[in-house]
């Protein structure tokens, strides 16, 4: 069953189609990667699925329900949580506060105007678990701004997991990471994927081949082909698109 689906989705900016007539389905429990050259419309598709952009044509469905008219926050509350290409942590908050914030959203405390979140023991316990799981125990009270770039990306993943999402959308999770960090983040993604559906945009083909069970190739705003890594990587049109032939 498809968890997230785009039917005939298009978006045009001043007449230029960044994504054109794309049909795309994300199946329950898979790790699915979208690849393609720069400017292929991968991140735009991401923004359309999470409604950070409103499509100019077509519809988006979550578990069969039409969510085309919903906003990003509403989509997130359904359990479709995304990350950003450029690390998106709350710089001025501590690591613990970053995690707690994600947990707050799922609690009934978010409209509490007085009193401290720390008083809620469940929330604190869960935050401790996640801090430990991602190796942040010693850095819990550090301002996120003071973390290294790699650790910020891990923190972003941690806050995303703290949301306990149904569908996880990761926009280039490895961008800007060093080799050793890439292996660790890949492990964390595999771990997080247990019992969840994951969609990722990624340029690092080693990572894609290791993580993704299914791959969609996009070129110039359209879906070129779809299949497993081995199938896709052998197709001549994919090779042509990547080597710049294309025609």
């Amino acid at each position, binding site marked *: 069953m498809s968890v997230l689906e785009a039917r005939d989705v298009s978006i045009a900016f001043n007449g230029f189609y960044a994504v054109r007539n794309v049909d795309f389905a994300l199946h329950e429990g898979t790790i699915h990667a979208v690849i393609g050259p720069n400017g292929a419309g991968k991140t735009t598709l991401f923004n359309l699925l*999470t409604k*950070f952009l409103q499509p100019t044509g077509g519809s988006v469905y979550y578990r069969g329900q039409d969510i085309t008219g919903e*906003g*990003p*926050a*509403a989509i*997130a*509350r359904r359990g479709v*949580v*995304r*990350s*950003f290409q450029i690390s*998106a*942590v*709350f*710089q*001025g*908050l501590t690591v613990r*506060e970053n995690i*707690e*914030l*994600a947990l*707050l*959203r799922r*609690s009934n*405390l*978010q*409209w*509490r*105007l*007085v*009193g*401290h*979140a720390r008083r809620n023991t469940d929330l604190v316990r869960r935050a401790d678990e996640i801090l430990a799981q991602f190796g942040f125990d*010693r850095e819990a*009270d*550090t*301002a996120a*701004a*003071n973390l290294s770039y790699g650790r910020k990306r891990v923190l972003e993943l941690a*806050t995303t997991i703290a*949301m306990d999402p149904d569908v996880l959308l990761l926009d280039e999770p490895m961008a800007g990471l060093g080799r050793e960090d890439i292996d660790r983040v890949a492990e964390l993604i595999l771990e997080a994927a247990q019992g969840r559906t994951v969609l990722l945009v990624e340029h690092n083909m080693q990572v894609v081949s290791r993580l993704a069970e299914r791959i969609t190739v996009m070129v110039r705003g359209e879906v070129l082909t779809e299949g497993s890594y081995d199938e896709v990587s052998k197709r001549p049109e994919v090779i042509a698109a990547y080597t710049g032939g294309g025609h």
Partner: protein
Amino acid sequence: MTTIFGIPAALLFGQLLLGLINGAFYATLSLGLAVIFGMMNIANFAHGALYMMGAVGAWFLLDAFGVGYWTSLFLCPLLVGIVGILLERLILRRVSHLDHLYGMLLTFGLALIIQGLFRFAFGSSGLPYAIPEALSGGTNLGFMFLPHYRGWVILVALVICFATWYAIEKTRLGAYLRAATENPALVQAFGINVPAMIMFTYGAGAALAAFAGVLAAPILQVSPTMGADLLIVIFAVVVIGGLGSIKGAIVAGFSAGILEGLTKAFYPEASTTVVFVLMALVLLIWPAGLFGSKTQSASTSVVLPALANETSLMRWALFAAMALSLAVAPVFVYPAFLMKAMTYALFACAFNLMAGYGRLVSFGHAMFIGTAGYVTAYVIKGWGFPPELAILAGTASASLLGLVAGWLSTRSSGVYFAMISLALAQMIYFVALQAPFTGGEDGIQSVPRGVLFGLFDLSDPAVLYVFVLLVFLGGFLFIAALVRSPFGQILKAIREHEPRARSLGFSTEHYKLAVFVISATLSGLAGSMKVLVTQIASLTDVHWLMSGEVILMTFLGGVGTLYGPVVGAFVVVAMQNYLAALGAWVSVIHGAIFVVCILAFRRGIVGELISYVSARQARSVAAGTRADAPDVVARRLKAGA
């Protein structure tokens, strides 16, 4: 006599012509604003002052040196343009790497200084300036009489508008300008001197404003304050057109003028508000204005100052110290001053909640304190309400206004938000000026204080003081708790990274609206209290200068700190009380403090203090031999830096 819709044709055409002329000034001025905004992302508050410099300059050149109109038309823009270049080079450039709000605040301070200096030099009465001989007289067009000078103004404004549009949209220089707006670093890498380009753009914008000033000198009242109130209308025009859009500025400028003229013919009472009503309507349909593209560039956020390791004991000790010193202060200081300062402190704290923690810097907060004040005064005097109900009514009116204004403005952020809130506040100002129940220029005076809950007689100064103190402390505690609550954490997160907060499932617009309404409510409470203290509700409370003052208090004391707004409010109210004798110099001093504060100690008095203490803590920890926890030391060093 022919009539159109029951209006004499001559009157209609006359107002239409006046509207067209006003439109010409609106378009020329908003054009300069749009160019500056497009290039620097600064809403140039000094624009009105530069326009005034053009007009007063022309008068001065004629009066002192006998320089005529035609020479002034070239000389004044040139001189003011040079002033603009110097302002950019020496002052504005220093904050160009920061959040653009700082640039806007700087221009606000500069406007206060320039206007104050000119008032000191030229007085505030009108200065006469004759129409040049070549353009005196007029022509009868059959359906109406057209004075030549007015025709000239419209013609030359149209030419200037078209030339500017052409230069920016169609020439290579314009292309560089537009490119530099989008990505200054990249354009710099092409070998183009972007800082110089920005400097000359600001100079050109200033020259354009001065040109409009000289143009206006023969037909509008020349005086040092002529730019101030016009500026707010211009802001509304620019918002209607779409911030930074040249085409939008021109179209909206002329339309606003014509609409105003027509309103004067059909329903004169609404003519001052109609532009703001139009703005509200346009924003409802197109949140970015008619031609706005709304590509707000990412701004560098300023980290809120916080003590590295503050404990709840420390927090309560600080609060107790403040409460105690305020309780004993009336023995040493004039109680009326203290009560006034406390109401303003509450106002500033409410403003800070939004500006500091929500990063929504409103330029229209006066509307809340003012509206609540009027409602409180009216229900006491007109309906005989007891004080507790009057406070409730005033505060509730501010909440309601906050809900409407917040709904309209929180969909925007940064400079957009500031300008929209300013225009909305100006709408309220004109309502207060004209509505039958506000007493117009006089306000509502000698409001009786009454008996609180039928028990406490507020006309007893001691009882009143205790009441004001308790309300202030209560409001302060509420804000302190709010900032640390889950809601406060979410606000902080939205301030840091709004898209991420949305991707976590927070409907950020609801939180922003909520904090706006809370801030409006507390400001309203301050306004109601102020009426009980001063026994008067007047126009000064709804004027945009009041909105400027609360910004000054908050930034001077320390935006984003709990105690900063309190300190700032006391300093500003003390200045008002003790410097009142200096007259026009007060606004110069205000402006100078603004400029110095933003250039030299941006974190404000309390913010700088906190940073200093944090840095010392870090140093003393580093000096100690705690070899077991080097990471703690490093962390504190970073936090203090």
